């Protein structure tokens, strides 16, 4: 059984904080409502994320990327 602690055992959306400007463009288009914007923090709830990828092109700065699962 693989453990859930291994990085990228499952694909996930990663936030590049050098690009993110905390605008919330991704929040509005996220169907499961799994992205939370605090003052200067953006958090993606990877458990609730359905990997639909809608947030990725919506981001004006390219701060969101899909990290693919390790086989």
């Amino acid at each position, binding site marked *: 059984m693989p453990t859930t602690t291994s990085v990228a055992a499952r694909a996930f959306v990663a936030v590049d904080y050098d690009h993110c*400007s*905390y*605008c*919330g*463009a*991704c*929040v*509005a*288009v*996220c*169907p499961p*409502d799994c992205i939370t*914007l*605090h*003052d200067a923090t953006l958090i993606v709830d990877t458990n609730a994320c359905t990997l639909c*990828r*809608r947030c*990725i*092109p*919506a*981001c*004006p*700065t*390219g701060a969101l990327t899909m990290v693919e699962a390790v086989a």
Partner: protein
Amino acid sequence: MKDRYDVVVVGAGPAGSIAARTAAEAGLETLLIEKRQEIGSPVRCGEAVGRDTVEKFIARDPKWIAAEIDCFSIYNAQGDHVVLPPLERTLVLERKIFDRELAHSAAKAGAEVAVKARATGMIRNGGGVEGVRMVVQGEPRDARATVVIGADGTESQTPRWAGLKSIPQLKNYYTAAQYLMTDIDVNPRICQYHIGWTIAPGGYGWVFPKGDKQANVGLVMWVDPKETKTAIEYLNEFVAARFPGKSILAQVVGGIPITNVLPEMVTDGYMAVGDAAHQSDPLTAGGITNGMYGGMFAAQVAAEGIKKGDVSKKFLKKYEQMWDAEFGKLYRRLLRIRHAVLNVPDDRLGKMIAEAAKLDARKMSLKDVVMIVLKSHPKLLLEVVPYFLGQ
């Protein structure tokens, strides 16, 4: 902060502040909460508004006016441009000051205003809303409210927490980027629009002067999963070609729904206003004064409902009717114009602008300019002309 209010407004942008002010002026106990630590910051847009419209809400004050605009000019990607005859008198705002002034006016009217107060959910009762769950300066708090007005902007969550369908399709969403630039040589009284797929696919670029050789230089583009460049990359190319080596004082980015308004903007005890209700203009994505109207209409209906003891979805729908009477027809037409423009091939659109550039358009009526430029595009003409005739 109390445990119970007549109205709680979530979000202290222009729509929320006008909603809170209108509610307070109607004698309602009103709370206005803002998640950020500072109202008006970060700035979220290009800051241009119609002068006469904004003055319906607040007396003009030089401290929030960065520039006064007489004219608009339309550019193609090659730099040909036409200066249009004067349309509506326009102001470029200093949003940081403007937004704070509006929140201040809500407070002066009797609303309680709080910053660093983030909504985390709605207190629900069946299908309806009975209050807001918040984190206020780190402490979880609930505030019961007869009506909650969601003015939480483009990143809004309150409509979906209230059970409304509010997630825009990507094709009806703009992604946007803007720089505040300095030492720029532009006419300080002309707002520039730049159209072309190489500039901003499915959208447009702009240069809005802000006085003292500063300008907001930005663009909106559509969201396309096949697109390889981000909005900020398009903006960097736009800036490198037009204002090389100039300094950037601020960066603004964001997303804007351009769907036309939500099919339902209310439910029992809840109303959405401004960008939370997708009230930005579906062609230009401008939304400041539109949202202020939304906030005013919503609070007026909320006040009436609270006095009558009826804040059911059925009663609050009156707000949707007020919105539709003021903006419904216009927005449906603007949406059709947008779709018609998107269907014009890029080189054709560029040529139309080049043709118009040869006209001495400033001495003509806008309708005449449009008629001449669009004569080869009857379909677009059919949509655009009634718009200029005000129908």
